[in-house]
């Protein structure tokens, strides 16, 4: 246990360094001392202070929010489905939320403050439809859960293409959402963060409270029930928390994929499969990864600025291929009993 505390301290250091680098580096480099000054003694006449407080800080907060929420959601989904490829982006949650946000704006002209509700509804529908299609295509005869991943992938494509079709059909509105659709961590979405952060925080709180019974559920339904867990209630509540918080993240800055897939795999060897230790670590490391991806998106191809979502897709595609190889094609294919 003390070893894990040590690792956790290390993770927090990584997060702090990533945050400092994210705030400090960019098209203009701001010294760390100015960052400190801007927070404790804001000077409205300083250009650096202005950039920091109204651009880089909101941006960093969005990145940390998305990273923490998606990583914890991915960890819970991977544990409950016993599938190493599960994550909010792959099981239809992100694409369902995206479609509903676009549709709610284009058809109902919902104001931004209500788009969070649309995202949650879409996330729930996307996830439920993914489970339903997997069930219909024979999940019971599919011990490695391949049908779950495939139905998630197909439905994600479907929902994303419908959203794209809606965008193409309305040239006047699409410019507002073109960047958002590809997962864009940007300070212009700060207001959305202030509108929806509590949804993500509530979802994370529920996951943390349920950490122990959720770990028991990963041992098997009967085992968990015999140890005193109300399996149905715990599972549904936790999945609801995952969908709500991931959908809130989508409502803020669009679908940033793969962080929910990758981070749990990095965390697990160090913090174990028990959610009590692994969820805080996922939150910290997910936040750090998104901060670094955002930093890379802004600086790697300067003067061009990439979308963080594009950056994560580049990285995530590689990791996805590695996990597929290990899980479905590897000789051992361990841990899939």
């Amino acid at each position, binding site marked *: 246990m003390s070893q894990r505390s040590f690792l956790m301290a290390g993770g927090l250091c990584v997060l702090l360094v990533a945050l400092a680098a994210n705030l400090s580096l960019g098209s203009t480099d701001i010294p760390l001392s100015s960052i400190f000054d801007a927070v404790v003694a804001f000077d409205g006449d300083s250009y650096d202070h202005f950039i920091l407080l109204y651009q880089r800080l909101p941006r960093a907060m969005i990145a940390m929010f998305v990273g923490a929420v998606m990583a914890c959601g991915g960890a819970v989904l991977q*544990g409950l489905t*016993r599938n190493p490829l599960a994550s909010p982006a792959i099981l239809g949650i992100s694409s369902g939320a995206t479609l509903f946000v676009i549709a709610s704006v284009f058809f109902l002209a919902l104001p931004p403050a209500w788009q969070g509700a649309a995202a949650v509804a879409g996330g729930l529908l996307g996830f439920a439809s993914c489970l339903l299609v997997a069930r219909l295509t024979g999940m019971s005869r599919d011990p490695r859960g391949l049908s779950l991943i495939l139905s998630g992938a197909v439905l994600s494509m479907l929902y994303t293409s419908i959203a794209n079709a809606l965008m193409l059909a309305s040239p006047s509105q699409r410019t507002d959402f073109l960047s958002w659709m590809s997962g864009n961590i940007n300070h212009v979405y700060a207001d959305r963060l202030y509108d929806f952060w509590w949804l993500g925080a509530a979802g994370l709180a529920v996951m943390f*409270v349920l950490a*122990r*019974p959720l*770990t*028991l559920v*990963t*041992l*098997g339904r*009967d*085992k968990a*029930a*015999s*140890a*005193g*867990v*109300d399996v149905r209630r715990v599972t549904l509540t936790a999945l609801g928390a995952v969908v709500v918080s991931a959908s809130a993240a989508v409502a803020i800055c669009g679908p940033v994929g793969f962080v929910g897939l990758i981070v749990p795999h990095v965390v*697990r*060897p160090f913090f*174990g*499969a*028990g959610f009590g230790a692994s969820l805080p670590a996922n939150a910290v490391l997910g936040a750090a990864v998104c901060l670094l991806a955002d930093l890379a998106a802004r600086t790697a191809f300067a003067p061009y600025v990439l979308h963080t979502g594009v950056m994560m897709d580049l990285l995530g595609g590689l990791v996805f291929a590695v996990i597929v190889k290990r899980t479905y094609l590897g000789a051992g294919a*361990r*841990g899939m*009993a």
Partner: protein
Amino acid sequence: MEIGKRDRCVLASHDLTVSYGPDSRPVLHALSVAFARERFTALVGPNGCGKSTLLKAIMGFLKPWAGRVTLDGAPLVGMPRRELARRIAYLPQENFCPDHIRLGELVELGGYARYAMFGGPSDADRRLFEAALATVGLDGMGSVRVSAMSGGQRQRAWLAMVLAQDADTILLDEPVNHLDLKYQYQILDLVHTLTRRGKTVVAVLHDLNLTAAFADAVVMLKDGAVVAEGPTAEAVTTETVRRVFDFEADVFERDGRLVCLPLNRPGASDIAA
């Protein structure tokens, strides 16, 4: 006599009829059986006779069509999971442990039913966990990953988790399946010692000789009904083995212990011919 018997029985089913779905035919037919307090009772019978189904019905995983299960005379139906977990522990036939779970974590999860929502194990709980690990002979291995253990160690790890639950009644579904003979003896011996600490144990077993060597009492099932029940030496006879398992057995005592062998020598059976 009848009252005295009931006093000694902690767990009982009354006219229990159970099936796996509304359309499938019942696996247990109006089954009434009682398990004696602080005894190791073996459930034996051929595959598909309803041994595991009975344990699942007792745990409430299958909803009975008719009948009920009682613990100390009170019906179990409707009891909240946490309260049930403090009184009955259950080890399924197949157990899955994700990678990267340590033995210590597994055992700590066993005590879940006693924790408050935001609390963890108390000092007394931690002493109980260490005692459970010592009982199964895995003391000092709390930081070892369960997935890295041998089959025998892993089965003892699951037993330690069951012991950490600290319930007085323990149900085990084929606890020695797939294990080397040495570990089968070791684990059943361990299970038997539990009865001396006030535990009531019901275990599904496959092997009549293991049953005869370790169990205090036997319940023999066939086609979802009880064929024989009682102390091992009385219940396991040539007659009951023929009725339950459909083969001619030679059942005899040796040094006060029961042995059960097929009557036909190899090569003499009409199936082989």
